[in-house]
């Protein structure tokens, strides 16, 4: 509604009164000057005109100044216009508050075309971050289960930027929370200032016009009630934002600490496994060497029976030859015996022949000597063969003993090798045992850390729910404030008793709903709260 313009010099108005008074004062001074001229002439002499002119100039300038000030001063308004102007100001401020609170809380403004809710946006980012982190944790676990050093290191490497990303997201989250808090504080200060201004303005209304402004008084009182409740809501929201900030901060700190610890653990595990792999390689070389010994000994032992068999065959063959030679000796002996008998018979026949047989007797004697010598030779051969046979048998016996001794030595060597191998295997077994103990401990620590990280992530849900409840309360409050602003415009402050009550109901509803949920700030010092975990 346009403000009606008044005439500049309106004698009913305050400015008119001031101008009239000033002009009266000037006239009075001029009349006084005329009457006082003889007195001034006596006192000042020739300076009379100068002093009078100066006084007149001062009075004229003063009157001019009053006149100008009155013209430039704000237009004087009627009580209805004053109420309307105040309402306009209030509506403007309320709209401003509403917009700024909406902007601060990130409530989607469909009229503007959809501003993204920063809390939702950050919650989505956090969820996304948590999802990626969960995948990374899963891949870390898979890598641990697979026992692959490369995959573990790869998982760990991809884990590190994620920690930074989470920290960054949580910092943004904290920043937005802080921003909302600051803006709410500003709104509280603005509303307080508004109340003060309104009261000051009321105080400037002249007493005789206060009856006309009773409607304005009532409106201001209602406005005061509404704003007081508004302040209460803002204070409650501020406290809840502190809780949210506290929870988010704690959760972020725990998360980052645990994730760094997790990364360190994974790093230690990777280093340990790398060292272990090189040691295992060295041990495997030792075991391979021992296995080589055993394989050679095995071949040797495999060959032993064959060699012995060959030797025995050779000896048996030689023994057969000696036996066949024994038949020959017997034949020689037989021939020698028959030759001897033949020689004896020949000697007998030579004796019967007398002198004629003397020559034959000599031959017979020689034949007999030959037979005896043949027999002796046969016996010598037999003795030699016996000696040979004996030597072969004894040699065979000795050879076997030697082979057995050899076998014993080889067996002893094999035992040493086996012992070495056993020691190698025992070392390796112990080493693996230690390795698996360490890996197991690291895995348990990792699993514990992962479990705690996953527990801390639950704060995201708690914070989300708290912000959602806060947003719902703010939405209800904003709707009421908008309706309040419309009512101010339509009724100029009439029929607005219910707004303070309605706002109070919003506040009480929010407080009641909030009391049903755990409060991390109060939980430590409020002994009356039910336990966190309870089995019925």
């Amino acid at each position: 509604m346009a403000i009606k313009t008044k005439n500049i010099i309106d004698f009913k108005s305050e400015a008119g009164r001031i101008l009239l008074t000033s002009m009266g004062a000037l006239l009075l001074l001029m009349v006084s000057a005329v009457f006082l001229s003889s007195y001034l002439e006596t006192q000042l002499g020739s300076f009379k005109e100068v002093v009078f002119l100066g006084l007149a100039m001062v009075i004229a300038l003063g009157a001019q100044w009053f006149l100008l000030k009155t013209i430039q001063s704000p237009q004087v308004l009627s009580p209805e216009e004053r109420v309307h102007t105040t309402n306009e100001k209030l509506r403007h401020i309320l709209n401003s508050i509403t917009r700024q609170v909406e902007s601060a809380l990130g409530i989607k403004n469909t009229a503007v075309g959809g501003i993204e809710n920063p809390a939702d946006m950050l919650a989505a980012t956090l969820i996304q971050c948590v999802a990626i982190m969960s995948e990374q944790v899963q891949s870390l676990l898979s890598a641990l289960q697979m026992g692959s050093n490369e995959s573990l290191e790869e998982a760990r490497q991809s884990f590190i930027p994620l920690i930074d990303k989470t920290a960054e997201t949580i910092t943004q989250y904290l920043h937005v929370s802080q921003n909302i808090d600051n803006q709410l504080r500003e709104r509280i200060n603005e509303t307080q200032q508004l109340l003060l201004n309104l009261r000051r303005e009321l105080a400037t209304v002249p007493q005789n016009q206060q009856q006309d402004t009773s409607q304005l008084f009532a409106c201001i009182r209602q406005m005061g009630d509404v704003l007081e409740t508004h302040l209460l809501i803002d204070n409650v929201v501020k406290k809840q934002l502190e809780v949210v900030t506290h929870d988010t901060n704690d959760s972020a700190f725990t998360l980052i600490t645990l994730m760094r610890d997790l990364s360190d653990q994974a790093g230690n595990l990777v280093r340990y496994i790398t060292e272990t792999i090189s040691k295992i390689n060295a041990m495997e070389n030792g075991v391979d060497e021992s296995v080589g010994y055993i394989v050679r000994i095995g071949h040797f032992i495999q060959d032993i029976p064959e060699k012995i068999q060959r030797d025995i065959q050779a000896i048996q063959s030689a023994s057969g030859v000696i036996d066949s030679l024994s038949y020959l000796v017997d034949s020689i002996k037989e021939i020698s015996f028959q030759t001897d008998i033949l020689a004896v018979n020949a000697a007998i026949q030579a004796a019967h022949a007398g002198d004629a047989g003397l020559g034959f007797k000599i031959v017979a004697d020689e034949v007999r000597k030959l037979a005896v010598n043949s027999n002796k030779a046969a016996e010598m051969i037999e003795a030699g063969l016996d000696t040979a046979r004996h030597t072969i048998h004894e040699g065979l016996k000795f050879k076997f003993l030697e082979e057995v001794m050899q076998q014993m030595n080889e067996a002893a060597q094999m035992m040493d090798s086996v012992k070495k191998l056993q020691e190698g295997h025992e070392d390796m077994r112990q080493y693996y045992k230690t390795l698996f103990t360490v890996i197991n401990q690291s895995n348990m620590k990792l699993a514990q850390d992962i479990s705690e990280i996953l527990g801390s992530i639950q704060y995201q849900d708690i914070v989300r729910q708290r912000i959602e409840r806060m947003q719902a309360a703010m939405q209800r409050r904003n709707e009421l404030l908008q309706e309040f602003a419309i009512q101010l415009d339509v009724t100029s402050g009439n029929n607005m008793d219910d707004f303070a009550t309605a706002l109070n109901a919003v506040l009480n509803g929010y407080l009641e709903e909030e009391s049903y949920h755990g409060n991390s700030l109060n939980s430590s010092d409020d002994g009356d709260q039910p336990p966190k975990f309870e089995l019925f």
Partner: protein
Amino acid sequence: MAKTILLVDDSVTMLMSVKNNLEIAGFKVETAEDGVKALAKLTAGLKPDLIITDINMPNMGGIELIKKARVLPGFRFMPILTLTTEASQGKRDEGKAAGATGWLVKPVGGADLLKIIKQVLPGA
């Protein structure tokens, strides 16, 4: 054989967090985003050893889910834990009356959760 737990929560973060913890501990985990979906799984033949449910969920909340699950054949004595931000005694009493076995207020760390599960699932 691994015991099966049905986890019901409308928060993706919660499902992920608790599911991972339980799987690391060796449980088989089934999930549902609200009471309606959980009940559909139960009526379709899923027979978990334990149900862990949120209270405030869209479509069907935890209290209603517990009430409806309790009347299903074979679910009368099954342990059902709640995992919620609701901490008031009134809500607890409501949960107890509906047939909940225990009341857990978020957040619950991995070690604490396993300790409580061992109490309601002997031998787990």
